[in-house]
């Protein structure tokens, strides 16, 4: 078992509020608890080891995917519900009650983020953190301060193990 909570070191801070560092089992629990979850994946997902795991997470937890950047190409031949949207635009829409969502059924209560540059996703999530009630769970390899809950900083190898544990717990 990988402890994904022990290293929450930051190079710079976004201020007084921080995300709660969580382990994979807790992340799985939160995902299962969500009423309208959305898996948000960045272009880093195209690394094969990650792509395979992202697909498993989406399938096992029945999560729709917001494929941002140019990540959609990884999901086209997979049996998942993935749609392209720009992540900055998505960050804005998540704060708007009238957004019908990617499927027309309304906004989301929880986003699960994976494979972004940490400065970019931190910036996008600073919008949802301050101006909405959307919960953000980061399951990438970097500690994301502006998420609600996040894995800590972990090595790439540990990250694969952590994602496997998450999948087992879903």
């Amino acid at each position, binding site marked *: 078992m990988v402890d994904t909570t022990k290293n929450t*070191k930051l*190079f710079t*801070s*976004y*201020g*007084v*509020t921080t995300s709660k560092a969580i382990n994979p089992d807790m992340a799985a629990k939160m995902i299962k608890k969500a009423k309208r979850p959305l898996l948000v994946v*960045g*272009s880093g997902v195209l690394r094969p080891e990650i792509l395979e795991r992202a697909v498993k997470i989406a399938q096992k937890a029945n999560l729709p995917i917001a494929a*941002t*950047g*140019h990540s*959609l*190409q990884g999901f*086209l031949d997979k049996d998942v519900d993935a*749609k*392209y949207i*720009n*992540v*900055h*635009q998505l*960050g*804005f*829409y998540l704060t*708007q009650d*009238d*957004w*019908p969502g990617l499927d027309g059924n309304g906004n989301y209560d929880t986003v699960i983020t994976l494979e*972004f*540059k*940490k*400065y*970019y996703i931190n*910036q*996008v999530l*600073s*919008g949802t*953190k*301050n*101006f909405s009630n959307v919960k953000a769970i980061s399951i990438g390899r*970097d500690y994301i301060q502006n998420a609600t809950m996040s894995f800590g*900083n972990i090595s790439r190898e540990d990250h694969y193990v952590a994602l496997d544990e998450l999948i087992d717990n879903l």
Partner: protein
Amino acid sequence: MSKLTTGSFSIEDLKDVQITINTIVGAAKEAAEEEELGPMGPSPFPGLATYRDDWNLKLLDRYEPVITPMCDQCCYCTYGPCDLSNNKRGACGIDMKGHNGREFFLRVITGTACHAAHGRHLLDHLLETFGEDVPLNLGQSDVLTPNITITTGTRPTTLGEIKPAMEHAEEQLTQLLATVHAGQESAEIDYDSKALFSGSLDHVGMEISDIVQIAALDFPKADPEAPLCEMGIGTLDKEKPFLCVIGHNVAGVTYMMDYMEENDLVDKMELGGLCCTAIDLTRYKEADRRPPYAKVVGSMSKELKIIRSGMPDVIVTDEQCVRADIVYEAQKLKIPVIASNAKIMYGLPNRDNEPVDQTIEELKSGAIPGCVILDYEKLGEVSVRLTHEMHPIREAAGLRDVATDEQLKEWVDKCADCGACYLACPIELDIPEAMKHAKEGDFTYLEDLHDACIGCRRCEQVCKKEIPILSVIDKASQKIIAEEKGWMRAGRGQVSDAEIRSEGLNLVMGTTPGIIAIIGCPNYSDCAKGVYYIAEEFLKRNYIVVGTGCGSMDMGMYKDENGETLYEKYPGGFVSGGLVNIGSCVSNAHITGAAQKVAGIFGGRTMDGNLAEIADYVLNRVGACGLAWGAFSQKASSIGTGCNVYGIPAVLGAHSSKYRRALIAKDYDESKWKVYDARNGEEMPIPPAPEFLLTTAETWQEALPMMAKACIRPSDNNLGRSIKLAHWMELHEKYIGGIPDDWWKFIRNEADIPLTKRADLMKRLEAERGWEIDWKRKKIISGPKIKFDVSAQPTNLKRLCKEA
């Protein structure tokens, strides 16, 4: 009584007495206002509130401010620090949104001030050197100053006549800055309106900066065949003394070039620049296309890399985008630094009043690490002579050599794999992984970091083993660096009236699919080559690609399989499929200027004092999209915001989310996608494009289709719309995958559908959207929510409607 005017007067009966009146407070503005100039719009010499209700709030109603704070706290005044998280209010009463609107606004006015101050410096210097009457010869154009004319209603034709516009920008900047004070403006939306106003002034400041230097310093004048200049570290002859100039303001450099030319030193040394000074030194005296000799070293991200190479024998800095550690770094390699602009003096001693020989001796001996010289005559002589003096000294001391292989191994072996550099790297390069492979003798991973590395040395700041990581990457990348040899067309200045006349119709109808403006700094989030890929893709598709600043450089830094750069492959005219290097950062005013001229010259709109109407025309009819892929500076935010107020959207790199404020529309809210038809004032639905005025993209692959889509306009005719849709959909398929979900929203009738896939796409409309198709006549019977009417006149301004 007759009024006093400027000029020289002799008084009768008093021999040898002449009175010269240079300026009368307010007189120039008054004269400008009194002069019969033809039709005038409603907003000459605007103030803080002038554009607010008539235009800015209309834009902001569709393009909503999207706030992404950098920090929970506000530390502005002594009430604080206040915690504003969850949009709480601080002790002064401001909320998180208002504070961050202010933060963004502050960046925009800082950028505006930078360009205005640059313009003021050049204007005063050139007025003093050449006088008031230098004509604004900018090429074959009648509309010389579109930004100045739209803002102030004046049409200057000489250097001296620019002064009222300069004074106006300065006065309004003072008003704008005042609103930042604690206890002043607090509404986010009003900071946005003020930021848009500041953006319009920024393009006035930039326009002034560039037209005065084009006119007085003999720059290319709207020349599509301006010469090609050598570019890249690999083009520098290491055997020659090297004078390296860094910054944005070319005034001082012209004196170095004059000294080199007068003393027959052009072939005996290298003169190379970084950042926009580099671009402008390759424009100096190039109106007649003489063979250029000065070189462009590269963008801002090469500043430390060129210093670490040891090659510069002297560095001269001027202003803007100059690293704060130039003296600190240069000193280690005994490179004297001369600060030539009062905006950056580095704490160095001033040598304006010392004899040249004495100053050279002081610098040569290392008694001082550098000095300030603001006297340009002295600067020209000292910098060039000192370069020749320092070269043999530094050569003999081995200071111009790169590190040895043994040194590299020693550095790499020190790495303890703590990961601190990965955490500190602003673009999150996996330096530990590259170091691990280097330890095992594989240096290719380090080499791969070179193109993406922005040369900031944050990694070195945190390395406990004090490894000079930047030097490690540079040493491992020597082969690539030696091959950094590109070409860039010298900045040509404005787009001429004739070019606008011949492209105007194509742009408004959409048959030239759009203007793509690649501008700005090199703080890329993926790789420097991204701008090359983007430019190439749009050039192949016959967009007009215009560039400025570091973007212009990086587009020319890469070669295709035949060894050709984009500047060699594509023509330099403002034509479909042309690659147009407009010039330096301040030349960005000519990009908005080109769009404004389409409205003024082709569209026949009054330009004078008429921002809202010109911007309205551009937003609805001129397909254009900017790309500031590595925007890092405050100036980039003001340039972009100036584009935005004129209805030109811009895509920025992922780092630019840190500007804290984007402008994004709700593509799902149909009420936002309506305009008026100016013929009768009726509402007409339009497609959701552009979807944003300012936003970010995650990767260069994502930016491509976003930009193509952002060039779609309500005025497109059928052919234009089908061409634009074809490019957007092809780019989406190639880089993102599949067909975009919302392509059907842009279809008004069957003729809008891209020709090559028309039958297939019509089947999809029938099957997926339930549209009714007459397959015999191959026509859409019902379905589209938007209608095509070739003579419709889309506008967001109700006051322009006939029946309004």
